[in-house]
């Protein structure tokens, strides 16, 4: 069974964002790069799936410049068997990243594809859907549980719905599953794992290798802006009872939100 995990390297959540002079992106020189938190859950689910089925290989794939290989090595240190790097210096949009990932999944004969529900930098939450459609595979978003049938022909997953509801979805395999926090607890990479990962051979493709040399992104970003600063408001006076009364009055009469 070929278990593919699509991961992205993103700026750490503590990052204070600074916009570039041309306003087409953010400054990246001081950034601490990490594996997209949601993709960590995906890696773990891939590893757990292999353990539960007692068979299969877990391959992690990422698209990006050389620094993204670090993310692959971390996944290998956690236990992934193979690492695939689609090397590009350009910033690709969701569409083009998905095309590249789909091509890799085809080459790897994917039986099941895990990825995080969204990347915490671009927040599109769309790659999973593009990849699934390009491969003509079914998909499920916001997955918090995944069980594969013994004959490996289908998966039963739990999806977080609105207002705390949970949908149980049955899907044939191969499929693309976008996982959410709560599906598992990602393991830490062991020290032996980290040492082994340092020497792991990374399979590398360029966009041209994947037949995408002439393709371009379909969306164009510009005019990055910081959000309007919220000014500090007023601190209410008096004891708890007075504060509660005053708050309700202000929310009603001044802010007009209740």
């Amino acid at each position, binding site marked *: 069974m070929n278990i593919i995990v699509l991961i992205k390297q993103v700026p750490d*959540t503590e*990052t204070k*964002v600074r916009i570039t002079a041309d306003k087409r992106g*953010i400054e990246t020189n001081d950034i601490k790069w990490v594996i997209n*938190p949601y993709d960590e859950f995906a890696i773990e689910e891939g590893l757990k799936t292999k353990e539960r089925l007692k068979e299969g290989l877990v391959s992690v794939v990422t698209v990006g410049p050389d620094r993204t290989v670090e993310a692959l090595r971390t996944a290998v240190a956690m236990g992934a068997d193979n690492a695939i790097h689609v090397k590009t210096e350009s910033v690709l949009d969701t*569409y083009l990243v998905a095309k590249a990932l789909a091509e890799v999944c085809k080459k790897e004969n994917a039986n099941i594809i895990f990825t995080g529900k969204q990347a915490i*930098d*671009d*927040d*599109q*939450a*769309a*790659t*999973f*859907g*593009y990849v*699934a*459609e*390009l491969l003509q595979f*079914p*998909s*499920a*978003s916001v997955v918090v549980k995944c069980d594969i049938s013994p004959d490996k022909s289908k998966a*039963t997953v739990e*999806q*977080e719905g*609105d*207002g*705390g*509801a*949970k*949908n*149980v979805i*049955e899907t*044939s395999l191969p499929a693309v599953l976008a996982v959410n926090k*709560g599906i598992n607890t990602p393991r830490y990479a062991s020290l032996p794992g980290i040492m082994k990962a340092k020497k792991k051979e990374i399979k590398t493709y360029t966009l041209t290798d994947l037949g995408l040399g002439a393709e371009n992104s*379909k*969306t164009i*970003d*510009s*005019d990055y*802006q*910081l*959000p309007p600063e*919220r000014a*500090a*408001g*007023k*601190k209410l006076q008096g004891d*708890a*009872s007075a*504060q*509660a009364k005053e*708050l*309700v009055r*202000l*929310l009603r009469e001044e*802010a007009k*939100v*209740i």
Partner: protein
Amino acid sequence: MGNVFVIAEQKDGHVKRVSLEILSELTRQGVAATAVVPGFGDLSKVTDNLVNHGAAKVVVLEHEALNQYNTEAYTNALHQYLSSQNPSVIVTGATSHGKDFLPRLAAKFTTGIAVDCTSFQLSGDKVSVRRPVYAGKCSKQVEFSGAPAIFSVRPNVLAVQTGSKSGSVEKVAANPGTVKAKIVSTVASQIKKVELTEADIIISGGRSLKSADNFKILADCAATVGAAVGASRAAVDAGYAPHDMQVGQTGKTVSPKLYIACGISGAIQHLAGMRTSKVIVAINKDPEAPIFQKADYGIVGDLFEVVPLLTEELKKLKSQS
């Protein structure tokens, strides 16, 4: 501006408000749009509502398989219809369904996508949108090369207004195509919960709540005004709340009229999830808590004392109106 389509979302005969928000904004921009509704059965309440909010035309994509939401069925049916209509723009709400099928639809059209936009501008032949990135730490403008421009709009940001109230309604037989993934059952939440990402009012608790049971204090307060209850990551990690209640960079991004943060310090990652709230209230024992820097109204106090009193005051207000 060529053909503009709003994929409207309905459930049990009710239109999701975000669909009306989008139509209202198109009306404000002087753009005529067609609302497309996948569904089955009597949807007259839905179509009337869409027309009343500015849809120049409503097209119901009708098929039994579209009675319940299904990723592939919706995607296939929408693509089959829309690809015959020479669309310039396809827009829907960034709800759980919208975020689920729209990327697949965009892949079928081999176009780009912009998700969870907080504004859009259709003028002449140009389409541009603005969307938050890095968990809302900044936003960017996105333009599209090729057609259709496909994007989704964040709920609760655009204002609803009624429109011209004259529009035609048409039913088209839909084709759901092949479906390989199906919802076989839905387990509703134990407690009826308002969906955080669409709530008008949210009351959230931090680790200071000290236990899952204590979240009842917030639930009681929320019940007085039909609010949703949220939680900080610290509260979720401590096991006091399930993570589908988590607001923040690795939780949900919310945009309510009113956000009341109880015992939440205001870490950068939490702020990322709620900074676009219209009004922020902070209740915290620590006067130096960073959240007070972003709150419109602050109460320095013990939430265990303040929140029950707030609940009483809200009950009084409710009984007066």
